[in-house]
Structure formats: structure tokens, C-alpha cells
């Protein structure tokens, strides 16, 4: 398990608050990565990350809808992962400005897959059946995201570009 231990939630609300936090962070991270790519003129990857950010934002709204009165504040939990990142957030150090669409999508896939496994493990271990049910729904959503990314991946040929092949040396200097 890569993204933190499945938690023992003491209420359904607590579960929703955490699920919400995961999605908020995932959306934020994809947006920041899109910004980075845009600054470095890799528009293709910026577009991929923006689209992923949109998916995560929609997922966030969906959770708020599903939670309904269970989470009246609609405020995400204040989570701090014991491992470096949350289950669905791409680590900043995993990207490169010359990354290819395939590399970006494989990263996204890795994260969606990790999130799916995270929610699956909660569904299996939660004592509260309502939490199990909601976690199972979340896991299904994440699996759906994985399948979208897979479909998307098929549109790109295998292209593994070696980063060391960068013909342009770094330039900026103060």
C-alpha cells in the first residue's frame, strides 16, 4: 500500500471528509502540474493534467452530492499522510518538462490505480457497512478513471524518450 494506511473511521462523515480531502488534493496537484508544464511550454502535457484536474474536481463535487447531509459542512478533513503523498496525488518529483503524453498518462494511471486500491481496502476492512458501501463506490469511480486513462493511453504510440537526450542545455541563470 503506497498511500497511507486504511483508516478506522469513527463516522461516515469522517470517511467523506477524508475522501473529499483526497480529491481536493488530487485536483490541486494536477492543476499545479499543468501550470508547470505550461510554463515550460509542454502544452500537450499541460492539457492532460488539466483534464485530469477536471476529472478530480468533478469527482469532488460528486462526493459532496453523495455525502449530502452526512457532511453538512462540506469541508475536507485535515489529513496528513504518513507516507509522502496522499493516495491520489502525483509526486512533484515524478515529472519532467520533456515528459511524453504516455509518461504523463502512466503516472496518472499509477495514481488512479493507487486510489482505487486504497478505497478497495477500506471497503474490505471497514466495520461500518455504510462506510464499506461508500468506499466501494469510490473504488468503482477510481477504476473507471483508470479505464479512461487506459483508453487514452491507447491513442499514443510507445515513445519512451530518454530525458538525457535533451538537445538543449539548461539556460536560466542568475
Amino acid at each position: 500500500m503506497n498511500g497511507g494506511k486504511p483508516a478506522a473511521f469513527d463516522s461516515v462523515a469522517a470517511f467523506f471528509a477524508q475522501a473529499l480531502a483526497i480529491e481536493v488534493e488530487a485536483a490541486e496537484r494536477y492543476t499545479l502540474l499543468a501550470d508547470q508544464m505550461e510554463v515550460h511550454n509542454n502544452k500537450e502535457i499541460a492539457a492532460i493534467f488539466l483534464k485530469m484536474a477536471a476529472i478530480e474536481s468533478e469527482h469532488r463535487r460528486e462526493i459532496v452530492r453523495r455525502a449530502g447531509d452526512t457532511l453538512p459542512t462540506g469541508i475536507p478533513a485535515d489529513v496528513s499522510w504518513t507516507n509522502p503523498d496522499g493516495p491520489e496525488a502525483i509526486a512533484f518529483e515524478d515529472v519532467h518538462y520533456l515528459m511524453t503524453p504516455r509518461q504523463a498518462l502512466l503516472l496518472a494511471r499509477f495514481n488512479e490505480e493507487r486510489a482505487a486500491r486504497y478505497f478497495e481496502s477500506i471497503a474490505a476492512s471497514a466495520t461500518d457497512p455504510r462506510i464499506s458501501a461508500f468506499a466501494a463506490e469510490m473504488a468503482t469511480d477510481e477504476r473507471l478513471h483508470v479505464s479512461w486513462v487506459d483508453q487514452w493511453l491507447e491513442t499514443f504510440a510507445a515513445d519512451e524518450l530518454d530525458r538525457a537526450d535533451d538537445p538543449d542545455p539548461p539556460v536560466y541563470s542568475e
Partner: protein
Amino acid sequence: MNMIPATAPAFKPADYKSSVKPVWCPGCGDHSVLLSFQRALAELALPPEQVAIVSGIGCSSRIPAYTNCYGFHGVHGRSLALASGLKVARPDLTVLVASGDGDGFSIGGNHLLHACRRNIDLTYIVMDNRIYGMTKGQPSPTTEPDWDTAISPGGTGLSPFHPLVIALASGANFIARGFAGNIGGCAKLIAEAVRTPGFSFVQILSPCVTFRPDQQRGWKDLVHPAAVPETDDPARAARRLMTDDGFNIGVLYRGKREPYQPAPKAYLAPSHLEAEFAL
């Protein structure tokens, strides 16, 4: 871990984000450190206008403009001096200092000693990538002796500098090490550093994807949480820091020194002092 906040926090990390987009390479650890800054400030619930972030020159020193706080991007190596003046003149502000291993340990090395000794209530965050990122990959005081670069073919052959040991010996009151990839963990360290009065020094291992690609995955595997809790005993801390592998993460020392904060004694109009010249 599973707390449900009843009310929205006073500040969200995004409240500390500016509209300026970072120029750092995608993959650079400094992106994570920026997020840690924002989370720490949100955790501390400090209004952005009450916070000043001061830096020198280097990739890492670019951080102030990416926040929505007051910032000063000064000259290479002098951030601690600038921040010291600011904090002494404005003790009401929360002053953070951002630096790199070249900025902080090489050109600014002397200021580090004296900032630790003075123990002004500052939080000093050094993004250590063991390289000069901004000037394209020269060795810094923390670079390994055999790291090959254009300016030091075959490596410098010099033993690296131990910033935390030096900080302790010079009088820093709080010493911690973090790893950029652990955004939440670094945010907690920064928040703790701010909360602890006096001079707080946080070394954040922040990989340089461009000139130290080895760090990118390597450090993730090497870092580990400190096995023993923090100490307030400088002698124990010294032993611990001297023998540590450089990848020990957490609060390593927290002392009890009183911060230095000279204060005015009176608020007389200068004309009151004229008598000393009068015959």
C-alpha cells in the same frame, strides 16, 4: 487522521499562493517545498500580510514571489541579514527565510553562524540539493566529494559541510530536517519551527531533477524518520547530528534559549537629547 473540521479553517493553503507561476523545472523538489510553506502558514492561521518571506539568489530563493505574503528576493547569500533587520525592526511580523545550500552555506556562511548565535526569532529554511542549481550545476558545500562537474572534474575531493552540526554549535534553537517529497511532513516541521521562539533551522532535502537526477528517486528511498524523539540537550544533539546519515527526518533538537530582540527603551523626541551638546 480522520478529524472532521466543524468550520472551515481560517486560511487555506491556497490563500498563500500568488498568481505568479514558478519557473522551477517540473520535478524540482522546490515545488513541494512551496506547497509545504503554504500548508504550514495555513496551519498557523497567519494572515498573509503578517508574514514576510525573505530569500537570497538561487532556484530555491525564488520562493517569495510565489506566495501571497510580503516577500524580499534580495542578493545572493544575504537573506539572513536582511531578515534579521526586518525582524528586529518589526517583531510583530512572522519572518521566514528561504535559501539554498550555495546561498546559505557558501556565500552566506558567515551570516548563518551569526544568525544562529544571535537567535533572533526567525525560521530559516534551506532547500538543500547539494548543487548550485541556478548557475547550472557547480558543487556546493554539501556536495559529495566525488560528484563530477564541469568546474570540478572528477569531484572536489572535499568533505561536505554539516550544516546542522554547525547550526547547533553556533547556537540555533531549533534544528530539523525534512524531505521535500513529504509535503505534509515538511509543512509540520515548518509550522513547528515557526512556533518555536528563536532561530529555527530547517534543512529540507529538495532534489534537483536537472543537475542531480540521482536524487530524484534515490532520496525517496534513503530518507527515514528519526528513530529517537527530539532532544533539548545540546550535547546529545551534537552526538546525534555528528553521527547521523544525513537522511534522518524530523525535529532533531529544540533548545530553550531566549530569542534576541532589542527593544526601544523610551520614545522621546530627538530634541530631548540635545542637552548633551549644549554648553
